[in-house]
Each structure stands twice: as C-alpha cells, then as structure tokens.
C-alpha cells in the first residue's frame, strides 16, 4: 500500500492546479516544491490568459493576487531607431478579463495555498531527485536516498526537467529545446505607470517585441508587462545562436534592450528590484517528452507546453489546463493505474486546446526564430514607414513602389519576400 495516492512534483500552476483537483476528488496528495515559498524559483513575466482555474477555484479572480487586467496589448518590431507596432486597446479586454497580469512569486504562493486548503500536503524547499520504478511501474519518488511511495506521480517540475532526465524518461535538453529568458522587475509608482502606459489603475499594458536588431547573428524577443507598482521587462534569446556568438553575453542584450530609445523612457527613474534568468521551453512538439507512462504523467513546462506565435507568449494557461487534465485522468482511473489507462491523458490533451494548438502551430519556432522575422522584416517595414511619412516635397509613390524599393535596398528579392511572408502568415 502506497503512502500517498498521488505525488505531484512542482507547485507551479500545473502542479498546484492538479493537486487542488485531486484533493477535491478525495485523494491523498503530496505536493513537493523546490522553492520556499512556492514561486521563488520562478522568473515568468507574466500574463495569464484564460479562465481554466475557475473549474477548481470558483471566482478565483477575486482572491488571486492579480496585478492588473490587460487593456492594451502590443506587438512591436524594434529596430535601432524605430518601433513598428500593432497596438490593440479595448474595453472588451477589461470586461472579459482576457489577460491577467500576475507576479508569479505571489501567484504561485497563493495557488499552492489553495492546494493546501483543499487538503494536499504541501512540502516546500525540497528538490526531488528522481522517480522510483518497480517492475516498469512508477511507485514513488526518491529524495536524498529515501523513497516516498504513491500510486501515481504527476511531474510538473517546470522548464528544467531534472526528474525526467534523471529517471531516464527524456533526453537532456538541447539548445533547440529551450531558450534563455531574463527578466528585470523595475519599481515605479502606480500613478507613473498609469500615466506612462495610458492605463487606469486596474488596466494594464502587455507587449511583446521582436528584437532581432540587437546583436548580429542573434535572435531574441522581448516583453514588457505593467504590474501594480512595478514593470516586468525581459528578453528571451535563442540559446544556439547565443552559444554560436561566443562573445555575446545575455546581460549585454538585456542592457541594449533597456537602452532602446522607446524602452528607456518607459522605465525612466525606475528602481531595479529583481534580476533573474530562467529557461523557456521553445521546442514545441519536437522537444516534448513522453507525456505519460506506467504510473506517471507530465504536465506544464516539463511537457514543453508553451505557445508563442509572435503575437502572444503563453504557458501558464497550458500549465493549468494540462495539470487539471492529468488530475482528471488519475481520478477517472484511480483503481487501475497503468500505462494503458493513463493514455487517456493524451486524448484529453488532444481534445483540448493544449495539444491542438501545438499541432496547429507545429514548426512555428522556425518562423519566429528566423532571420526573416527577426531582422529583414523589421528593416523593410521601417523603410516603408519612413518613406511614407518623411515628406520631402517630392511626388508621392504608390505603396507597392515604396515596398519594392524597401525590399531591394535590404538586399532581398520580391519572390523571397512573398514566400517568406506566405510562410509566416500560414504558420502564425
């Protein structure tokens, strides 16, 4: 007889959501977290899209530590001297509470507390070493030589999947599987944020940036989210390019981003409060481990469930949903947990947006992490915009002529532009 029905590794959004649902279903749950308190090992931005949590915590938006609701969403290309952005503001965003800006340090602690309140045993400050197998079945976890047994394990350990790797259940991470994220939290008075970002005290600004211009040969994206009285500013840089470009340091790229003329003013007079780095799953389907096995399921970042199509960066919603589906799978099969019964987890994921999105957008990283998206397109857009707005007392040209000149001056052929653009539209 096992000591616990289920052990959940990791008290992030995936693990805590799973633990809440399992505990609500009457299971004896152990939730183990490396950070003390939960959330301290996390670096994520962050915006939480969607409302899946309401399935286990009704009215969660009332009690959760939400900084602001997204009312203004931007996607922008930066070049050295310019910014070309799509900016969307809407009262509906606020009314529907589509995007919740959260600080993970506070949010994860709150969500883990909900799991504890639901009856799970929460153990913090402990890093699990690996899963323990007996006759091909997972029978618990090992830490510091001790075995703690359970009928099933949910691995929700995050972007650096040590337990899966140590247990021989996934290969080591390669540079294609993950990117490097760096985040700085900058203190600014609440009223300054409201004025600077043109939001009211409940509304918030969330923006993603394409930062290909920052460094030769390097590909990176940026983000900026307004919290209540801080701003989260960060970059995500591709590891293989960073490694290839041996002379470049990640903090230099972050520094250049901060110094950009259109970023500098937004964080002016701010006081740096935190500076942290973390891995970000980027590989999509190709990097995904086996999602289930005899006695275990994988959820959240550990399963590489993140989504980025250049317009949004998402992961927390995928984590919550996959955690809930993992819990559901175990609850439905609690009397007979084996590889066959747990396979229904994948069916559930496929029927939800989690795996559907990853299949629909399979290969998107080849577009978002391409020189075309990162370097060429911003330059072309910049040339087009400048020639349209810089009035020099010359006869005006059609947009097509302006575009042709911009394409040419950037050393591209029209056919390249069309095929790259087509690929991009298709993938996005």
């Amino acid at each position: 007889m096992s000591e616990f029905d289920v052990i959940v590794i990791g008290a992030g959004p995936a693990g805590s959501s799973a633990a809440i649902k399992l505990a609500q279903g009457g299971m004896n749950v152990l939730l183990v977290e490396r950070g003390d308190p939960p959330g301290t090992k996390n670096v994520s931005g962050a915006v939480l899209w969607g409302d899946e949590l309401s399935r286990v915590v009704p009215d969660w938006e009332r009690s959760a530590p939400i900084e602001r609701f997204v009312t203004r969403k931007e996607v922008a290309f930066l070049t050295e001297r310019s910014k070309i952005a799509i900016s969307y503001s809407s009262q509906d965003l606020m009314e529907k509470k589509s995007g919740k800006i959260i600080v993970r340090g506070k949010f994860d602690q709150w969500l883990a507390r909900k799991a504890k309140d639901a009856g799970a045993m929460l153990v913090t400050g402990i890093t699990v070493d690996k899963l323990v197998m007996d006759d091909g079945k997972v029978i618990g976890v090992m830490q510091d030589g001790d075995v703690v047994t359970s009928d099933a394990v949910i691995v929700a350990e995050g972007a650096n999947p040590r337990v899966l790797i140590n247990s021989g259940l996934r290969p080591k991470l390669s540079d294609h599987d993950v990117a490097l994220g760096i985040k700085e939290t900058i203190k600014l008075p609440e009223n300054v944020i409201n004025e600077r970002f043109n939001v009211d005290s409940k509304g918030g600004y969330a923006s993603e940036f394409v930062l290909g211009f920052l460094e030769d040969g390097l590909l990176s994206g940026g983000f900026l989210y307004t919290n209540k009285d801080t701003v989260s500013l960060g970059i995500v840089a591709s590891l293989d390019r960073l490694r290839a470009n041996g002379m470049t340091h990640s903090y230099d790229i972050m520094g250049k981003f901060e110094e950009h003329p259109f970023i500098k003013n937004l964080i002016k007079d701010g006081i740096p409060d935190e500076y942290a780095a973390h891995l970000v799953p980027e590989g999509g389907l190709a990097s995904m481990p086996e999602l289930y096995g005899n006695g275990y399921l994988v959820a959240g970042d550990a399963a590489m469930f993140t989504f980025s199509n250049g317009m949004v960066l998402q992961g927390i919603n995928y984590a919550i949903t996959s955690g809930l589906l993992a819990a559901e799978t175990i609850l439905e099969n609690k009397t007979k947990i084996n590889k066959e019964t747990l396979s229904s987890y994948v069916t559930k994921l496929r029927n939800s947006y989690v795996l559907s999105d990853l299949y629909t957008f399979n290969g998107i990283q080849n577009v978002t992490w391409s020189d075309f998206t990162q370097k060429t397109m911003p330059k072309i857009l910049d040339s087009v915009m400048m020639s349209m707005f810089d009035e020099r007392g010359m006869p005006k040209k059609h947009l097509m002529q302006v575009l042709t000149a911009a394409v040419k001056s950037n050393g591209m052929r029209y056919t390249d532009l069309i095929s790259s653009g087509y690929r991009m539209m298709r993938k996005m």
Partner: protein
Amino acid sequence: MLNIVVMIKQVPDSSEVEIDPVKMTLNRTKARNVVNAADLNALEFALRIKDKVGANITVISMGPPMADAAIIECMARGADRGILITDRAFAGADTYPTGLTLAATIAKIGNVDIIFGGDETTDSSTGHVGPGVAEFLGIDQITYAKEVDYEDGYVIATRDLEDGDETVKVHTPVLITVLLNSNIPRHQSLRKKIDAIRKGVESWGINELGLKPDWVGLRGSPTIVRSMKAIKEPEHLHKTVPIDQIDTIIADLVSKNIIKVGGK
C-alpha cells in the same frame, strides 16, 4: 542518550530587507522568512553529535505562530522535536526576557546536556541571548565556536577570537553559540519533512512555562529605544595625483588637520 536543544529564530531574509527611509525601521513585509543562518550552523553541529553518539534533538524558538515553518524546516534537517514558544505576552521582548523565556523552556524540557544557538541573529545582531540563557540556567558557556565535537561527556570546541583560536574542553551541561558559516548545513529531507508536518510543532505559552507577565515581553524588557537616527555616510573625495607630488598632498592634509603625523 544525549539531550540537545537548539535555539533558533525565524528572521526576514537579510538580502531582501529594506530600511523605511521615513520611519527608520526595517520593512520586513516583502522579505521571505528564513531560519537565521548561524542557527543552521548550530543545528548542523548538533546533528553531527547525533550522528556520532546518538542524541535527541529538540529545536525551540520564540516567535509568532507562523515561525512554526522554521522549526519544521529544522526537523526536516534531522531534529526530533519542535517547540514554538508563542504568546502575546512575549511580544516586544528585548534580549533579557528572551533569554529568560528560553531558559525557562529548557528547564521545563529537563535533563538537557547541550544547548546550541547561533552566535547572533541577522535581524538584531546583539549576540546577547545565548550567553543570557546560560546565565539564567547557571551553566557554562562556549561562545564564538567554529568547531564543535563531543566525547565522553565533554564538548571540545574551537573558539574564533580576535587574537587567535582557542580550543576548550567543557563538561556538559554547556551552552554553545556557533559562528556563522562554521560548517555547511545539510539539506532538508523529504522523508523527514513529511514526518515533521505529521508530527507537528508543540506550542508553549506563558502558562506552560510558569512565567509572570511582568517578567516577559515589553514589560520585562529593560531596554528603552528613545530615538533612531540614520547615519549619513561621509562624502568621499577622490583625487589622483602623480607619485612625485604625494609629499605636497600629505603636507596639505596635515595643514588642514585631516591627518596627523608623528604618532600623536
């Protein structure tokens, strides 16, 4: 079997504490709560004695109810029992009644051979409490210990003093205060933490200890804080001079009475 008590304190993580520029007090609200670092070094020495000859280790702490997390953490590292000394009557205590309260706790536990504590806490840095407890109990004490061993009823400890190391051998019962970073504390264990959570932390108040309200807390504290001042760091001037002009600079500094020559 040896009976060991380790005194610990939950403190705000000193790297996250800010000083409120107006009130001149520590703003602890944002900081994570941790076990005072030197206390973990003290616990580690206790655990090494337990590993060597076997011992029953009780961790005690005076603090608010939430400080039980710090005691659970110590049990997850290997302590056997946890007692939280918590009561509204203890609030506002300076180091004198704190020492008295801890001594009363140790007396109530009874038959204690060795008492450990960190040499000071990061949030007040007085270093009073350990010696105070030893005096209230009327037992020997070893302060500033950086190495601790136990053999046949004696504690052998090396003290880190300003003019050198001093090794002492003291018969139990004895109280030892341990210097920060004198060892590497072991990690928490999942197995032990689960057991600790199930076992729980005992809670003792003023009645259990048989203390009078006048002896403890703010009323029992002889310290009075009259006011606090921020110390302004003096401005530093920097000047680079060629090496052959050092004499003139020295002469200038002497003439302005900034430095003195002749060993006066």
